[in-house]
């Protein structure tokens, strides 16, 4: 399947065009900054490292984060087609994809919890039990996204 993918017209364009691959890589880092940037800020807030920001603000920011994710899903798929057989057997790439799947699953859990918050709860109860219960999830998410970045950078070295 991956061998076939490499022979498609799209894969040929990404692989052979002088500017397609670098342009997609540039787009990929912009998407990364949007989605991982918002998630890291959210996790630092929920872990209690950043204070004074209403956590529900991150529910408002969720569509922007999904937009960044969509940019990277599309640019990432296009980059993948050009060397599908190489990426599919590259250990850092497989670790990166696992981290992204786990990080997005965790994000859907965290954002569902954020949306559920009533207007009063975050505002008037400083140490809410629900806020505290999000802490381990936030720290796990932080580690997962740092892992995704680390593995992503290492793809070129394996």
């Amino acid at each position: 399947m991956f061998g076939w993918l490499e022979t498609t017209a799209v894969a040929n364009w990404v692989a052979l065009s002088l500017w397609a691959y670098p342009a997609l890589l540039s787009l990929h880092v912009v998407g990364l900054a949007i989605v991982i940037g918002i998630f890291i800020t959210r996790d630092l807030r929920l872990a209690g490292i950043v204070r004074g920001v209403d956590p529900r603000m991150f529910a408002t920011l969720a569509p922007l984060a999904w937009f960044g994710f969509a940019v990277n899903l599309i640019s990432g798929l296009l980059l993948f087609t050009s060397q599908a057989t190489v990426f599919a057997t590259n250990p850092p790439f497989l670790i990166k994809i696992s981290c992204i799947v786990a990080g997005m699953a965790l994000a859907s859990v965290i954002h569902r919890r954020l949306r559920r918050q009533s207007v009063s709860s975050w505002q008037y109860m400083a140490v809410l039990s629900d806020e505290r219960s999000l802490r381990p999830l936030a720290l796990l998410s932080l580690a997962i996204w740092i892992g995704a970045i680390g593995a992503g950078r290492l793809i070129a070295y394996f």
Partner: protein
Amino acid sequence: MFQSFAASIADSSLNRWIAETYWLWPVLEIIHFIGLSVMLGALLIIDARLLGMLGTWGTAAIKRLTPLVWFGFCINLASGTMFFIGDPMRYSINIGFQLKMLLILIAGINVAVYQLQLRPRLAGWNTDSMPPIARFVAIVSLATWGGVLLLGRLIPYVGTG
């Protein structure tokens, strides 16, 4: 400007250590990417708020996120300086690197406008209708840092000159 500085640090002991330590370059790259995520994530939220896109969330949140922006910037200033020292002759003549530094300079002037003109007046703007100067600063910030990201990623691919 970059070339004479590059020549002065080429073949220094730090230059040789960075160039010859095989694991250091990928580690610096990972640190640089984490730094950009921390910095630009917080900055994106601040800019969205300055554009009035976040509804009525208080502008106090902006001041709380500013230290994250500086923290990420310091990480990347340090790791970026290590890249330059590790391969000064390549970076100094690279057009992508030169334009990236120019954009960071413009972004820095924009930060000065923010610190002098916007920061003192933030508390009075707890609505979603932000004044034009706030929108201007946010747009310049998004445009320059977006350009920094694109150019930074293109450094290995663009010509030198």
